[in-house]
């Protein structure tokens, strides 16, 4: 009943990390021009990892950032360099499409 919608490709960058990183990650995302963010509280484990969540840091968050591919990649590289050596961080990209391109 609808003609196909015109959508715009974007990338969803998902970062699963210890909760202590929420504030700095959001700050970094904002600095790179990401226009919004969504956080859920999750729990989980990286089976074979040597590092492991500490007591208050046992809380884990999943941060989702919807933006263009270049921004997602730049942000991911920064996170990898800055936080991954010392913090629990898992990251992946997922393709996404949006309707209002000016917002994401």
């Amino acid at each position, binding site marked *: 009943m609808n003609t196909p919608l015109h959508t715009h490709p974007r990338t969803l960058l998902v970062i699963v990390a210890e909760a*202590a990183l929420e504030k*700095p990650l959001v700050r970094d995302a904002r600095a790179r021009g990401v226009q919004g963010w969504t956080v859920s509280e999750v729990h989980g484990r990286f089976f074979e990892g040597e590092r492991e*969540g*500490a*007591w*208050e*840091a046992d809380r884990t968050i999943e941060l989702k950032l919807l933006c263009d591919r270049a921004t997602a990649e730049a942000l991911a590289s920064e996170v990898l360099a800055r936080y991954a*050596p*010392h913090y629990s961080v898992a990251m992946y990209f997922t393709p996404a499409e949006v309707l209002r391109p000016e917002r994401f």
Partner: protein
Amino acid sequence: MIDVVVFFFLLGLFARLVRSELKLPEALYETLSIYLLLAIGLKGGIELSKQPLATLAPEVAALAAMGFLIPVGLYPLLRLLRLSGVDAAALGAHYGSVSVVTFAVAQTALARANLPLEAQAPLWVAVLEAPGLLAGILLARLSAARDASGPPRWGELAHDVLFGKSVLLLVGGIVIGAVAGEAGTAPIKAVFIDPFKGVLALFLLELGLVAGGRLGDVRRFGFAVLLVGIGAPLLLSGVGAATGLLLGLGTGGVAMLATLAASASYIAAPTAMRIAVPQANAALSITAALGITFPFNIVIGIPLYIELARRLHP
């Protein structure tokens, strides 16, 4: 006879050791910790309202110095145990700061022993929160030549401690108690005073569960962590007791300062270190502070420190 609240701690410990799925909801844990801080502050404030305000300045200065110097003093000892510089610094920060629940348990132990405690004792907890963290971060900076994460954001850090939950609720409670006084706070006694020990029991059940979860890591870190977890409080209780005597406190006050010095922070310190010294091994610190020192103090340490204070203070 062991205090009933300690049994709850042991029950939690037991539950975790037998791998029970018992778990207190996180919201309850947060509620209990807010409650304890407010209630401790209020009680102290009410006491303060009854007596002329002592000149607190020397106490504040002495305690801030003690909190700052504990990590500095522990640092070389921890290095001897082959801990890395950042690990020694971060671990020291935990002992420089304090544990509020350990304070609460010591408070009830003193009451049972009929040893009066200085009215301003809750203030000590607030004063001791930050200096140790500061020292730990400085030591870590000095020991780590280069640091990817850039210079520490001191302003942010100071703000987070000063207006963090612990200091804010403790000091807030003290001020409300002092201003409203015994009569003014009477209508809220049924919530903040009478149920205190029962709530503390629940909180200790939870902490038993958490501490039990940390015990498993002891094997991972081996003998060193055991040595630190038990040796540090024993050593530091002496430092605390000495500070208490120097300040001319009563037997209860000396025992309490011994306890506070011996106690390790397992909330403010891990959070602050995670942000300011991320290279440090968080699991090591928390295992020592929460897995060993906390149970040790609750079950064995506090009676010991009270005994110590009695001997030192004729």
